[in-house]
C-alpha cells in the first residue's frame, strides 16, 4: 500500500483538502481533524456538518509535511490552461450528461402515462374532474398555482413529488426556456475536487518540504518565534496521542482531546508559551484557572524551550482553598 503524501492544496497561504478520501485518511490515520468549511455563504452555521473543503490549521499542515505525510500543492498554478481540445471535450460531456437526464425524464414520464392508462374508468373520471376544477381555478389572472402551467389534457397526477418538475413542464410564456430543452429541468453537477480535471497538474506543483514551499512563495508558516512555539507544542501534544482543536471558544490556543473529538470531550485548554522567560501576568493564571473550573477543564500552559526543543506543560487549576 505504497501511497504518496496526501496533497494539501494551498490557496492564499492556507491549506485545504478537497478530496473526501484524504479528509478521512487525515482523521483516522493521523489524528488531524481540521475544520470542514464548505457551505453556502448565508448558511454558515457552526452546528451543522459542513462539507469540503477541509481547512487545516497552519500547525496541522506543518506537522504533516515535516513528517512526510503530506505535501503542499500550489493550487492556483496547478490549474493549467485547458486548451481548446480539452475544453471541447469537457463541454461535450457536460451536454451529454444533460441529454441523458432529459432522456431519462422522458422515459419516466412515458412510464407514468402508461401506468395511468391502466387505471379504472372510475379513477379516470375522478382525475379528469379534478383537473377541470384546477384549470377553472387557474383561469383567474392572479392565481399562481402550479397547475396553471399544465398543458391541456395532461393526465399526470399532481402529487407533491412531481410538483417541482411539473411546474416547469410545458413552461408558460415567461420565455425563460431555451430552445431544445423546452421547459425541462436538469441538474448541473460541479465536482468539488479539481483533481478530477484533465488540466489540473499537481505533480509539477507539489512541494514536499516547507523550505521549498517557502521559496516558491506559497507558504511561510512558521516565521516568528511564537509560530515556531505553536508548531513545537502541536507536535508534542499530537505525538502524545492527543487530538487538537481550535481553542478560541475557551480562551486558549487549543482544545486538547484524549481521542477523536466526535467521541470525547476535551479535558484541557492549552495556551502556548513561546519561551521559559516569556512574561506571564498572574491575572492570566487567575483567568485561565477560573475559566477551567467553570468548564470542567484544566488549563495547560505549554512552554517551548527553543534551546533544547523541549516542551514542558503545566496544568493550572484553582486550588479550592484561600
Amino acid at each position, binding site marked *: 500500500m505504497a501511497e504518496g503524501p496526501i496533497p494539501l492544496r494551498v490557496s492564499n497561504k492556507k491549506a485545504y483538502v478537497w478530496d473526501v478520501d484524504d479528509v478521512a485518511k487525515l482523521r483516522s490515520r493521523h489524528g488531524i481533524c481540521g475544520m470542514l468549511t464548505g457551505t453556502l455563504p448565508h448558511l454558515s452555521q457552526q452546528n451543522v456538518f459542513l462539507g469540503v473543503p477541509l481547512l487545516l490549521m497552519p500547525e496541522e499542515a506543518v506537522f504533516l509535511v515535516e513528517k512526510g505525510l503530506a505535501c503542499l500543492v500550489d493550487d492556483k498554478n496547478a490549474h493549467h490552461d485547458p486548451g481548446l481540445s480539452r475544453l471541447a471535450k469537457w463541454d461535450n460531456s457536460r451536454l451529454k450528461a444533460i441529454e441523458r437526464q432529459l432522456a431519462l425524464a422522458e422515459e419516466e414520464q412515458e412510464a407514468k402515462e402508461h401506468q395511468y392508462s391502466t387505471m379504472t374508468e372510475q379513477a379516470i373520471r375522478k382525475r379528469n374532474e379534478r383537473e377541470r376544477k384546477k384549470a377553472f381555478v387557474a383561469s383567474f389572472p392572479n392565481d399562481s398555482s402550479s397547475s396553471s402551467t399544465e398543458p391541456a389534457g395532461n393526465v399526470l397526477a399532481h402529487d407533491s413529488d412531481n410538483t417541482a418538475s411539473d411546474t416547469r413542464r410545458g413552461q408558460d410564456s415567461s420565455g425563460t426556456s431555451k430552445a431544445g430543452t423546452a421547459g425541462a429541468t436538469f441538474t448541473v453537477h460541479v465536482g468539488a475536487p479539481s483533481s478530477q480535471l484533465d488540466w489540473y497538474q499537481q505533480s509539477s506543483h507539489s512541494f514536499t518540504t516547507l523550505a521549498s514551499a517557502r521559496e516558491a512563495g506559497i507558504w511561510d508558516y512558521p516565521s516568528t518565534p511564537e509560530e515556531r512555539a505553536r508548531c513545537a507544542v502541536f507536535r508534542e501534544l499530537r505525538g*502524545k496521542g492527543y487530538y487538537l482543536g481550535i481553542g478560541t471558544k475557551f480562551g486558549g490556543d487549543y482544545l*486538547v482531546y484524549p481521542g477523536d473529538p466526535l467521541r470525547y470531550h476535551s*479535558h*484541557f485548554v492549552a495556551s502556548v*508559551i513561546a519561551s*521559559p*522567560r*516569556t*512574561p*506571564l*501576568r*498572574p*491575572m492570566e*493564571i*487567575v483567568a485561565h*484557572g477560573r475559566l*477551567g473550573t467553570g468548564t*470542567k*477543564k*484544566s488549563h*495547560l*500552559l505549554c*512552554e517551548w524551550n527553543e534551546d533544547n526543543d523541549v516542551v*514542558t*506543560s*503545566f*496544568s*493550572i*487549576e*484553582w*486550588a*479550592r*482553598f*484561600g
Partner: protein
Amino acid sequence: MSTVTNMQTHPSYPELTRYLSKYPSSAGALFQTFNDITFAQKWTNVELVDLPNCQRAGIKGLRPSSDDGELPSTCIVLPCSLAESISTSYFSAAFTSLGESAPKQIYLAICAEDSSTVYYKIGKGIVKPSI
C-alpha cells in the same frame, strides 16, 4: 501606650527577615502569603525555601487534609503579587528545587494589595482536572 504596629513587630517577622531583605521586590507577597498559610489555611511544619531562580523564597509545609479526603501532603507555595510579571521558568525552578521526591503540584499564591490571596495549583505535565 504606643499602638503603632509595623512589620517588624509582627510575630512572623523574625522568621521572614532574611528573605524579606534578600528579595525586597517579593517581600510584600511573601509576608502576606506566609501569614495566610500559617494562620488562615493552618498549614503545619511551615518553613521557608530559598528559590534564587524565582527571585524569591517559597513556603513549604504540610497542607491539612482537604474536604475530598486527600491526605495531608507536603506542598510548596510560590508567592507573587498581582502586579508583577512571572514566567514559566519560575514553575520549573520550584519543581527542581523540590528534588526527586517532589509532589506533582506546587501552589501559586497571588496576592492583591487589599490582602486578598488566591491560590492556584500548578501541576507539572498534563494533569487531568480533579473532578
